[in-house]
C-alpha cells in the first residue's frame, strides 16, 4: 500500500470541495436495483410512473453507494482512512433520474481526536449529491475515521 497523503491533521473544518461530475445511466440504476433493491420504481419506467416516485429513479441505497465511490475517487483512497463507525443521517430529498450528471459537494463540518484511541480521529462530513441545476438530491452526514500522522495521548 502506498503511503497515504492525507491524515487526520490534514482535514480542515470549513473546507468545501466539489467532486465529479459523474453521469448516472439508466442501465446502472436498473442493475443496482436488480441486485439490491428490486422494487418497481427502480426497475421499470412504466411501473415506476404509477408509484409515488412518479418515474424511474435510483434506489436511495444506490445514491449512497455512488457517493461512497465519489469520495473514494475524490480523497478517501489517498487518505489514511479507517472506515466509519456509522452515519448520522441520510436524506433522500429528490429522485436521482437516469441521465443525470451528478456532483458531490463535501463539507468538513468539524473534527475531533478519538477519546479512547490516540492513533486516530473523527472527521465529520456533510456530503450533498447535486444535479446539473445545483438541486440537492441526497445528503449524508457522517464521521470518517482517519489515522493521525502523529499519535497523541489518549484523553
Amino acid at each position, binding site marked *: 500500500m502506498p503511503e497515504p497523503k492525507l491524515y487526520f491533521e490534514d482535514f480542515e473544518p470549513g473546507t468545501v470541495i466539489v467532486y465529479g461530475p459523474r453521469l448516472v445511466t439508466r442501465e446502472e440504476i436498473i442493475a443496482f436495483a436488480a441486485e439490491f*433493491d*428490486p*422494487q418497481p420504481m427502480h426497475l421499470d419506467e412504466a411501473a415506476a410512473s404509477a408509484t*409515488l416516485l412518479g418515474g424511474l429513479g435510483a434506489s436511495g441505497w444506490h445514491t449512497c*453507494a455512488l457517493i461512497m*465511490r465519489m469520495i473514494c475517487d475524490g480523497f*478517501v483512497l489517498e487518505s489514511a482512512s479507517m*472506515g466509519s463507525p456509522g452515519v448520522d*443521517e441520510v436524506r*433522500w430529498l429528490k429522485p436521482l433520474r437516469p441521465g443525470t450528471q451528478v456532483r458531490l459537494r463535501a463539507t468538513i463540518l468539524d473534527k475531533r481526536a478519538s477519546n479512547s484511541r490516540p492513533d486516530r480521529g473523527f472527521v465529520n462530513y456533510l456530503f450533498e449529491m447535486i444535479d446539473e441545476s445545483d438541486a440537492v438530491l441526497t445528503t449524508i452526514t457522517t464521521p470518517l475515521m482517519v489515522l493521525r500522522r502523529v499519535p497523541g495521548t489518549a484523553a
Partner: protein
Amino acid sequence: MKFFEDIRVGDVTELGRYTFSPDDIKSFARRFDPQRFHVDEDEAARSHFGALCASGWHTASMWMRLAADQRRLEAEAARARGEALAQWGPALGFRELKWLKPVYAGDTIAYRAEVIEARVSNSRPTSGLVVSLATGDNQKGERVISFVSTVFVQRRPEIP
C-alpha cells in the same frame, strides 16, 4: 403489502439471512467502495480490520434486498387472496446508522425490521409514516448493523 392501518408498533419482520462470500464483498467494493480492506485479502490482513470485510454500504444494501424480497412476497400473497395492495415508499431516508462490527468474508447476517413508530403524515394525508429499526446480527449473535428508517405507507381508503 400492508396498509398503514394494519401496522402496529412492535411488529417484527424477520427478513432472512445472507452469507457474504469473498467474491460478493470484492464485487460490491470494486464498484462502490474500493478501499484496500474491502478489495484485497492481503491488504485487509495488514489493516486494522485484520481480514477481508464488507463495505458498510454493502451490509446495508443487503438489508434492503431482503426487505424488498419480503415486500414482494407479501404483495404476491395479498394478490392471491384478492386483497387490495397498499403502496409503500418512497423512503425519506434514515438516521443513526451504526456499523457496530465488521462483516467478514463468510459471515452470515440475519436481518430484521421492527416498527418503532407509526403516525399519519402531515404532508401526505393519504399516507402514514412508518419508522422502523433495521438490524443485522452475525452468526455469533453480535449486532453488526442497525439504522432507523422512515417510509411512507398508504392509508386504507375510506369506504363511504
